[in-house]
């Protein structure tokens, strides 16, 4: 019976790990939303900050990718 419990534990853990991506999605939306609201107030200054926006998106999304990686590792690699 131990083998099946391990399998069940892995799958449940993978499902729980996916809840981390919700926070990442909110974080990315926060960055882009702030960029948009700033860009609509000051369109001329918007072009200079697209690089900063992309860096912010990358940092926020990286953590969502980390949690997806944990889920994938639990399901297929362990």
């Amino acid at each position: 019976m131990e083998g099946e419990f391990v399998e069940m534990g892995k799958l449940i853990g993978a499902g729980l790990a996916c809840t981390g991506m919700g926070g990442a999605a909110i974080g990315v939306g926060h960055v882009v939303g702030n960029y948009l609201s700033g860009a609509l107030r000051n369109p001329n200054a918007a072009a200079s900050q697209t690089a900063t926006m992309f860096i912010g998106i990358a940092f926020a999304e990286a953590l969502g990718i980390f949690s997806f990686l944990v889920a994938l590792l639990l399901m297929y690699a362990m």
Partner: protein
Amino acid sequence: MASESGVFEIKPMDQFIITPLFSEGDLQWYTFTNQSLWMLIALIGIILLFVFGIRKGDVVPGRIQSIAEVIYVFVHKMVLDITGEDGLKYFPYIFTLFLLILFGNVLGLLPYSFTFTSHIAVTGILALLVFISVTILGFVKNGLKFLGLFWISSAPLALRPILLIIEVISYFVRPISHSIRLAGNMMAGHAVIKVFAGFAGIMGLGAVAPILAIVAVYGLEMLVVVIQAYVFTILTCVYLNDALHPGH
């Protein structure tokens, strides 16, 4: 994942297995694997684009020359904006990084190909080289003033030791996050496509829904591929700027 009905198994991670191409058995460091093949194809693609694109040298560029020029100007402007004039000495290294990752990612979009940037071994070495070279450069250029990167003089004196610990930890986490971001994005995108493809294989006539989902994810993947190459390069420029001009 446990087998479905025993007839059709969805194995989305099999696409990341490195297999030797011309010999059987275990992998030595000199084995020519599918990863080596796609790295070679990326290298040949870069050489073809830049050697034969610039060869004519027209003032009004044709199509291939225009692509090469746009990529060059894009990376040049990025390095210039972020690191300033004295960062331009390191432009060849950053350009090489950008092109390698861009071509590696984009070639992974072709069906039946292998994304060599989806392996932590490849991106880990790239990020580790960036980290080591940027640290050594910081010490060579600035001496011990490079450690001023961690001692934030604009914060109140009582907070500085805590901030020192936090800054040192976040400095050493940089290669980890740098490498996992690229590898994780590539692996995640391709694994999702394979999982949907597995669903489409099972569903028979209702496979239209997963196929539409694959089209949508593929479009997103095309965007993510270019953005991840750009983000890797721009973060390298930011770390280089921190090394060349440490100051908070």
